[in-house]
């Protein structure tokens, strides 16, 4: 009896979405270039993590927001095939538009119920210029939006950490403050390795014990270090 009962077997998809602020201020002091470099350097790390757990199908996308929002990588792309084209910065900070576009993609369908919780990484250096609250509501109205692992990175002192905290939705997890290129590289590496690894093989959690956005255990945060002379943002 060689036949196996049932239909097609499949690993569980894990959607990882970079949400990058490309407003004009990101062009100041090389922030956008640092972000491009940090994400490019993180790709091999993501691929290594994905290789370690073949039961999770890591699919990566990226959305950029400035004056409006646009998918930078629109198709969920196997991490082994993922390449990063440099972002450029200009315009304002329409974060709400990006949040609502991501919300559309987290609907079921196109998402499936059997997916692993998606990972959303929001990176911003400023204040939203559109109705971010509506975008955030649209995201949180989706079951996968509420259950996504939501990480935020604030670039520089001018970033609106209050808005980023609302995106995270859990007071126990703070936005990561990157005030220099090294810190940004460290945080990008952390989300693309430790967080991705945790999200790709999560254990069950009791529904009454999981804090909002914490249905996947968040690994120990990297040390941001004290404020230093290296801080340029």
């Amino acid at each position, binding site marked *: 009896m060689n036949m196996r009962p049932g239909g097609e077997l499949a690993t569980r998809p894990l959607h990882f979405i970079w949400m990058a602020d490309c407003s004009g201020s990101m062009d100041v002091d090389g922030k956008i270039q640092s972000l491009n470099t940090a994400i490019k350097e993180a790709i091999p790390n993501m691929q290594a993590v994905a290789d370690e757990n073949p039961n999770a199908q890591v699919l990566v996308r990226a959305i950029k927001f400035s004056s409006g929002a646009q998918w930078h990588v629109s198709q969920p792309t196997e991490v082994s095939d993922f390449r990063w084209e440099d972002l450029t910065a200009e315009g304002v900070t329409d974060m709400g538009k990006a949040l609502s576009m991501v919300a559309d993609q987290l609907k079921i369908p196109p998402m499936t119920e059997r997916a692993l919780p998606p990972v959303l990484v929001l990176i911003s250096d400023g204040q939203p210029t559109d109705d971010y609250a509506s975008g955030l509501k649209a995201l949180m109205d989706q079951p996968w939006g509420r259950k996504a692992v939501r990480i935020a990175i604030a670039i520089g002192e001018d970033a609106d950490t209050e808005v980023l905290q609302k995106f995270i939705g859990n007071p126990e997890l703070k936005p990561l403050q990157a005030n220099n290129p090294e810190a940004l590289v460290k945080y990008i590496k952390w989300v693309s390795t430790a967080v991705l690894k945790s999200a790709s093989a999560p*254990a069950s959690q009791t529904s009454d014990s999981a804090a909002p956005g914490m249905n996947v255990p968040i690994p120990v945060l990297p040390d941001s270090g004290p404020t230093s002379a290296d801080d340029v943002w």
Partner: protein
Amino acid sequence: MSKDKHTARWRVVGQSVRGATHERAGVTNQDAIHWLPESGTELPLILAVADGHGSRRSFRSETGARLAVETAAQVIRDFLRGQVEIENLSAIKRAAEEWLPVAVARRWLEAVTNHLAAHPLSADELKLVGADQPEASVQASQSNSQLAYGTTILVAAVTVDFILYLQLGDGEILIVADDGEVSSPLPKDQRLFANETTSLCSEDAWRDFRVCFQAVSNTPPALILLSTDGYPNSFRDESGFFKVGTDILEMIRAEGLDMVNDHLESWLRESTYAGSGDDVTLGLICSLDSIARQAMREIRTPTLQQAAEQGREFNQREDRDAPVEYDV
């Protein structure tokens, strides 16, 4: 009550395999499976499967799952033995729905409490479940300690007169009718999403049970399947998982239950490796009468192809026009 029901023959088989992810990480199988009676053939027949959470804070969930299947099977066996008014199905149904969830949850808690007394948590373990605060009451500390054993529980009990299904947390119970149609006896629980599950370790866990009571009709299910969520999560879609029910029934009819049982482990292993990576457990309760009925139908009713072949063979016989002689 018909004579058929009293002579009904059922048999249970099952397997549990460690998930591919757990094998890579060196973690033990957190699922459990158990049935009563041990022979797996005499009514009432009770099958239980459980899925220990396996999270960092549920570090004793392998034990929690084992205690869950053992205690649930015992509670239900005792409940069934205690039913004196067996004709009064509505009274049994009400008792099953109202009393069993409370009893199953309470007996599991007692077993966990006993295990904790024999194997107290270390200081580090108490910290992990949040039971280390000096101001924590004894009750809160106990409640937090149960988290270490967190698990789901799924049970099916087949008796002469009715079949009972109970479920707390994720996993699937499927029934397959004589004609191969697959359905779920329990409603979906929308809270079971994104790795979150209701659990025996939760406060008032009995409230989260789903229970279904089915009187045995003239045609009871041919097959009942109980699985932990690692199995359905290994299929691309729900229809692919439901197909397991139809396929296994066909395989039992074609090759026998023993052959299916012999292959269960390899099927489940393939599923976790090519699918979810989670621990996978599948228990089957098979109506041997259904299998026998189908076999009889096939003997009596040749397929169209068989009939055509028989016709062709007859037409080719040289003596086809000779008179037929009968032994008297």
